[in-house]
């Protein structure tokens, strides 16, 4: 066990955990923030995606040791123009079915839009291929990202 200081959604926390513990479980089990989901544990499905220093990151394979000291943003308080546009577009198109992967999808989509404000289909493929949706809501994810991009363009 070891103590780590981390900043999540602008708030400082200190946790005393196994240095190997992935950020995902620090968020969920230590800090009680359950919006970030466990889906595979091996960075294959993207349900655990958070932003670490502005980059989309799979928290299930990011040991707390590596994440501590960075700025972590989760679905609970992802904000800004891109986040609002994405979440509104998600609701507008009724993207979610079961909904379990959608926190991760949204975190990836927000990161994509910040990087590529007007993504093409292949940009969307590149940015979103790491996020599995077993309900296969992909048609609407694509549509919602385009809607959000259009909203941001104004």
């Amino acid at each position: 066990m070891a103590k780590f200081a981390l900043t999540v959604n602008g708030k400082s926390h200190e946790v005393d955990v196994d240095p190997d513990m992935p950020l995902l479980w620090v968020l969920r089990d230590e800090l009680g923030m359950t919006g970030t989901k466990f889906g595979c544990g091996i960075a294959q499905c993207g349900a655990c995606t958070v932003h670490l220093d502005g980059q989309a990151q799979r928290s299930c394979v990011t040991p707390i040791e590596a994440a501590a000291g960075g700025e972590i943003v989760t679905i609970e308080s992802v904000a800004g123009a891109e986040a609002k546009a994405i979440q509104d577009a998600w609701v507008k198109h009724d993207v979610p079915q079961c909904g379990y992967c959608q926190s991760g999808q949204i975190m990836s989509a927000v990161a994509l839009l910040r990087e590529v404000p007007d993504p093409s289909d292949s940009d969307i493929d590149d940015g979103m291929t790491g996020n599995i949706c077993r309900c296969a809501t992909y048609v609407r994810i694509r549509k919602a990202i385009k809607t959000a991009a259009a909203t941001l363009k104004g």
Partner: protein
Amino acid sequence: MQFLFDKDKAALQSEAVREPIEASRRTILKSIGGVGAGLVLGLQLPAAAKAQSGAAAVIKGDGGASTFAPNAFVRIAPDSTVTVLIKHIEFGQGPYTGLATLVAEELDADWSQMQAQSAPANTPLYKNLAFGVQGTGGSTAMANSYEQMRKAGAAARHMLVEAAAEAWGVPVDDITVSKGVISHKESGKSGKFGDFAEAAAKMTPPSEPSLKDPSEFVLIGTHLPKLDSRAKATGEATFTMDATLPGMLTVLIQRPPLFGAKAKSFDDTETRKVAGVVDVKLLPRGIAVYAEGFWAAKKGRDALKVEWDETGAETRSTAEIVADYSQSAATTGKVVKEAGDAEKVLDAGGKTIVAEYVFPYLAHAPMEPLDCLIEANESSAKVWAGCQMPTIDQGAIAQTLGLRPEEVKIETLFAGGSFGRRATPVADVAYEAATAVDAIGRTRPVKVIFTREDDIHGGFYRPLNVHKMKGAIDAEGNITAWDHVIVGQSIMEGTPFESMMKDGIDPTMVEGADDLPYAIPNFRASVHKKTLAVPPLWWRSVGHTHTAYSTETFLDELIALSGKDPVEARLKLLGDKHPRLTGVLKAVAELADWGSAVPEARARGVAVHKSFNTYVAEIAEVAMGEEDGVPRVHKVWVAVDCGVAVNPDVVRAQMEGGVGYGLGHILYAGLTLDKGRIMQSNFDTYRSLRINEMPEVEVTIVKSAEAPTGVGEPGVPPIGPAVANAWAKLTGKRVRNLPFAPIES
């Protein structure tokens, strides 16, 4: 619009099992801010059901009539919010929205005042009218609720109107209701539902509430936004994985590596050294590691040393199982349906095709790994889970803990997918959770979590199947004989669903094959039932997952042999006896402009299939993919006839999702055994469809006035054969061994 969750932490933490009978009631009360002055209605329940009902005690406004008992389908609060208690699990297929729509329609509510909430486990009140038990499956949620929920809404409206008429001293017939406002034109009086909720509760429920004619619908058939989208776009939606209780332990179970094996002995020395591990117990199904949080449980479990007793376990490899099935498939099985003499015609020679198909075991792999939270004491238990069969889970938990079913309260949470996996007839997850809480003396709440590896290795698969098909055509290209042999496992045998078997035949093994709609004079379908220790389970569209593939690709092959057009030939074979199949086939052909020029280096294939009383036709357009032997599917056109489309956008979403789910497995997914061990373990080897592999999907809904049928499953069966038929057209290769891509391990 708002979605209610009463599963926030505060609510959870205050739900002690000390007052089990009161628990779910208090949750409900709290979540709507006091229902004391509200109106609650129920429908058509026998007197016995009323007497047993815990929920009935909540209710004011009991009319007392024996065919009508108040229950908790509809609740109208003083603030005019209408809460619909949904008896079906919400895992993406849309019952929260769909069933609330039915109530809102007959109530003449405004959509913005509607809310949905999960109904508690209570079989008499909330049973699926298609099964007689509380549960979701077979795409029945809408079909079995259509009249029931509309009547619930209509009865509520009737009583509100009576209350308003009495208050205003005007005739009932002069009152109108629209968008949640009750009005009397002549006097200019108007009010909201909440204004009359208390008075309405004193009215007598109508014995047979009159329902609208479909031509009067204002909400059904329109695009209403889903009630749960916002919560699911913000991370606020609570799944079982997210639910916690004070003092809760996380439990990971080390299950046997072979199906049918048992733990002989184990050494937990290293496990107990892991910080956070609290206890280790031997359970009937494996060794449970109890810990403060997931990570400690996982590290602890990784450190376990177990010796297994593999006597009686399945130790064969996939190749051996397939060889055995294949040998059986060479002979006629138990005949399920026969017409004419297929064997005689086939023996006579001529133009015939013989084909063998192999369908692998498939895992459901719902996005949320399986889980169950349980708290228990000597006299009661409370469970939070994505519970697809509350009656069965409740019974299993009660039996395990020595309780009566009504002493087990179940709160069904959102489930992160299921595709059938949360509907095990043996209640595997609920049972494990009950044994886990019991093994530590019911001292602390426990949450059993599966890792993804546990899920993929855990059995309850879509069973492996081998089909042998023989067909003949005459000189004019007419199909004269069809012989279909299916070899697989029974899902129902040995479970509470066995009563649905007839003459020893499990209908889920042959559905979609024994009721082939095409006019073929000599026909035989037969089945060989195998018994293996690998537990089988229904998997989104069940038997149709393989029968639609074999029948629609084999038919396509025979049609190709005759040189006819795949759509025209199917229409001719359907004749005038199957108007709804014909309808979707024509509709999809029109949507895709079948027969028009196909882009270069692409080809199209078609398939049509009825499942769960819903009719779906699909056309797929494919090209060579980047991987050898695997197509790139560019576009899929879908025509669906599901009767009245209550929410057309939900219907479209289910078709899109069904296409994606079916396609991912047909192209990429399969489980293999090596000396009994499952060789895939996570999404790296059990491959899932990704966004770059998803085709464009265009859906048309055939207009219908028939009662609605389900849409969760029926989009799945046609996609495989449509793609395979397109691929055969493009490459000349008939794929009969699934998936298309090599299975990784």
